[in-house]
């Protein structure tokens, strides 16, 4: 963008474009440059570069009950309902993920599932190993985070076990006892645990 602005300024100074054209072209470029895609997202030779989290696979005894709770608390639509799962995208069809400009990055979503993780894969793939770790909570960023307001909102929605965790985060428990954290944008890899 720096180079583009310098070029246009040169053209203006040389009389090639008018003052109005200078303002309009820079305004247009500045407001659409975010849609230009991200060449920097190409994977490295060793390992890959993630452009973001694609989805979270959440497995519980009653996927629809979980989906309804997350839909209520986070204003999420439900799409692709099947016998044992449903998908909750973080936005509407056609929207971009928040602050992602690359066009080939989908909205993040949660898949609510009820399935036997020990069942052999139907496609003949190798069985899933027994994991020795656990994802003990998920944290989600929400808009316009204010701890007091969010806590009041959660109480009004009937959410249980609400606990403030500093100024930028709140923990709560979902219907299946899973720990869910809500954060403002200020909570990041740099600030969390600093």
């Amino acid at each position, binding site marked *: 963008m720096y180079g583009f602005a310098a070029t246009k300024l040169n053209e203006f100074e040389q009389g090639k474009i008018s003052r109005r054209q200078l303002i309009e072209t820079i305004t247009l470029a500045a407001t659409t440059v975010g849609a230009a895609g991200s060449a920097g997202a190409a994977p490295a030779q*060793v*390992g890959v570069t993630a452009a973001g989290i694609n989805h979270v696979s959440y497995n*519980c005894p009653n996927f629809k009950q979980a989906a309804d709770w997350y839909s209520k608390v986070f*204003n999420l639509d439900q799409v692709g309902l099947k016998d044992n799962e449903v998908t909750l995208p973080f936005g509407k069809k056609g929207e971009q993920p928040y*602050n992602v400009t690359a066009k080939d990055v989908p909205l993040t979503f949660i898949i609510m599932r009820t399935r036997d993780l020990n069942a052999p894969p139907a496609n003949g793939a190798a069985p899933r190993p027994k994991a020795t770790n656990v994802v003990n909570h998920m944290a989600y960023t929400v808009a316009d985070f204010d701890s007091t307001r969010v806590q009041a909102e959660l109480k009004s929605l009937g959410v249980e076990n609400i606990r403030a965790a500093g100024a930028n985060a709140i923990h709560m428990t979902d219907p299946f006892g899973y720990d869910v954290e809500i954060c403002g944008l200020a909570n990041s890899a740099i600030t969390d645990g600093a």
Partner: protein
Amino acid sequence: MERFIADLVRSFESGKIDRRQFCEAVALATTIFAAGSAAQAAPARGLKMLAVNHVSYACSDYRIARDWYAKVFNTKIYNDKGMGRANLEFGGPEPGKGGSFIITRNFGNNEKTARAVVDHICYTVANWDDTRVNNALKAAGTNPTGRKGSVNVYDPNGYQVQIASIDGENPFI
């Protein structure tokens, strides 16, 4: 934005700012504009979900998970004080602008109480190319399996990690 640019041009013409300052201000304004204003868009009821903030990953030795995710995903590491946890930032939005990270941490006391489990996380890779992604994952010491636009690997704790393109995993396809 147009008014801001017009003011900048006026300041440049009047000599209040030089060429470099003009161009820097345009570049900065572009970045800020691209950040959007969704943070102001909280709904009347419930909360507006913007992104995953972080994944809290507990295991017996956080350093093994830290090193594996750092290698496979080329992540930056923050706040590793040798105290049983580290933050690994992914690409995409910057920290504080909707970016996501994993906290790898040693087991605490409350990991086994829920009746639900996050059985895997899937990560999006932009500019997807099946051959390139598979080769990059193999070069990082993993054994990817899967289909066009989506592969799975297992981390050192046997946890499923999926990596997909926009076509491989998309809520609307």
